[in-house]
């Protein structure tokens, strides 16, 4: 069966100028550098990594919102164009995006009910009465109260606004929603509400998610598969259970060990990485992670490791994977 969305060798490079104003030398910033993944119908792929690792750019490329420097995006087996023509506009209906900043994503001068209905108007789906009915159904499905229909975005709390944004993304019955840090701006108790809502909506509408977050706990909670990105590349990919229980890549290990846990057991071993992630303009040669890696050998400094398959469908881009698992 063809996956819903398939991405092969996706790359996006930007020409930038190094410090020095107009006279600075130009350089290439590799925001995304050869990323491949697939998302099945009604499945969730979690994309994690630190800021600047290219996870948001990867999502925009996968949705056809940004032309790729190289690589292919296949939606339902068909190549997804980034030319903004009729076919592209039709594909918008099937691919939706949800952001962290809900106040920025909503129109402050339009009642939320009308905003949720807007995609139906744009795509000309149904009669006016049908649209209104559908919007009202969805309004309650995402847990908003009917009397809020005519409210404006600033009158709602952050959690309620995120529900509005989700309803608007869902109203045209998309096949995939890319959620870019959808809950990072919310308080803990509200985060749980939205995570549960995302889960329920998936069950109810069969929508697939590309879920981007820096919070590994949340990603584990919502994903069927997780990909870890570092400097524009996927360094490890697998089921959340396997990835969090037994991470193979030294970077994933550090990430997992860095998650603070609210359990009384404090005996967990913590790996503390040295330094900051390098700038994507100056990606180190060989394995991009080697300057911060405690296990790096001579080979890591020269040869870029490919993402290779391990037993059980797990994939790692590390020369030492397999050997280091025994040592950990």
């Amino acid at each position, binding site marked *: 069966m063809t996956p819903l969305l398939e991405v092969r060798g996706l790359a996006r490079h930007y020409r930038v100028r190094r410090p020095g104003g107009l006279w600075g030398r130009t350089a290439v910033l590799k925001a995304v550098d050869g990323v491949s993944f697939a998302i099945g119908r009604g499945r969730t792929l979690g994309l994690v990594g*630190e*800021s600047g690792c290219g996870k948001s750019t990867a999502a925009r490329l996968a949705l056809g919102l940004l032309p790729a420097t190289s690589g292919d995006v296949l939606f339902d087996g068909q190549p997804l164009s980034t030319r903004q023509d009729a076919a592209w506009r039709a594909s918008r209906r099937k691919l939706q995006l949800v952001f962290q900043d809900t106040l920025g994503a909503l129109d402050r001068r339009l009642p939320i009910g009308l905003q949720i209905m807007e995609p139906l108007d744009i795509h000309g789906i149904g009669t006016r009465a049908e649209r209104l009915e559908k919007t009202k159904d969805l309004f309650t499905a995402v847990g908003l109260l009917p009397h809020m229909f005519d409210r404006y975005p600033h009158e709602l*709390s952050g*959690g*309620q606004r995120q529900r509005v944004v989700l309803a608007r993304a869902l109203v045209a019955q998309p096949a995939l929603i890319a959620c870019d840090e959808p809950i990072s701006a919310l*308080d*803990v*108790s*509200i*985060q*749980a*509400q939205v*995570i*549960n809502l995302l*889960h329920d909506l998936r069950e109810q509408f069969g929508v697939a998610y590309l879920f981007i977050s*820096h919070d*590994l*706990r*949340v990603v*584990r*909670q919502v994903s069927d598969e997780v990909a870890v990105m570092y400097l524009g590349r996927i360094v490890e990919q697998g089921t*959340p259970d396997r990835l*969090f*229980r037994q991470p193979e890549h030294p970077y994933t290990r*550090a*990430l*997992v*060990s*860095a*998650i*603070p*846990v*609210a*359990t*009384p057991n*404090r005996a967990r071993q*913590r790996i*503390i*990485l040295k330094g*900051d*992630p390098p700038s994507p303009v100056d990606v180190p040669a060989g394995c991009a992670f080697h300057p911060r890696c405690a296990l790096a050998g001579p080979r890591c400094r020269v040869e870029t490791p490919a993402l290779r398959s391990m037993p059980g469908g797990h994939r790692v881009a590390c020369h030492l994977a397999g050997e280091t698992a025994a040592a950990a």
Partner: protein
Amino acid sequence: MVALPDVEPATDRRLVDIRGLTVDFDMGARVSRVLHGIDLSIDKGEVVGLVGESGCGKSVTWLAVLGLLGPRAHVGGIATLGGEPLLGIGDERLSRVRGGRIAMIFQDPTACLNPVKRIGAQVCEALHLHRGIVGERARAEARRLLDRVGIAAAAQRMNEYPHQMSGGMNQRVMIATALAGEPDLLVADEPTTALDATIQAQILDLLREVRRDTGMAMVLISHDLGVVAENCDRVAVMYCGRVVEQAPAERLFEKPSHPYTRGLLAALPDLAGPTRRLESIPGNVPEPWNLPTGCAFAPRCGACRDFCTGTVPPYRAVAAGHLVACARAGFLHHAPSAQSSAVAR
């Protein structure tokens, strides 16, 4: 204001004592009370975590104590540092405490540093203000401090501007500046919230190290229960301008008593074991001018009874050092914890 039991008498270990702290904001048309009588004490060398959702007053508590809220805020109650009063002592005396005996670091280090001054000069300024060191001695001391907070090649980095450094590096500079006055207490307000996971681990590790060397006390304000659990000796949970529960960290996370604390813990996704459906706390945090009568958490509380909405529940001890402001705390105590009764997905 609620009369509270003085659980432990003040001892000479006591560094900061806050009693019945209230803050009212004058909004012109109305006056909103955002702190309803906070009682909190910090011992020497102790790390106290302050958790709660946005708007619960965890930052305002410390801004009020340090007189940083501005003229529209009316601060009431008592706050002492080593037995000396802190509230209403005037700006001049307070400015010697601020940065000197109590230092504060914030969430966004890049916004806290002066963008047009070199970082070396900013650390030197703190040294001049709080310790009266100037000139070459100040530069040498600044170099030592920057080196202390793990900035490699400190001598060169001193000549850089904040925008040339990463967020994690800037937070290190902030910590160095805070350490310049050799404070007895460091108030860290969400010090790692704006940083990436691996950088967060570095900064928390640095703060632990600094504390071990200097023996200073710390207040860690955070919305992240994990960060608090791993770094604090004692934790206070705040909700709507009140401390609703406080206990030694291990005790709090093992036997949370207030339904709000339990709710917060149940709302956190696990890192191991089967994925369960998260238990969310229904509803939203009420606005400070629109608080319900009685217990502020009552409308969102699963264990709420009629009497909860009548009066504000008193603060009482359920175990040594474990205080809870919940009328039903004793009854809920032996009920299965929220986490173990969670519905498996």
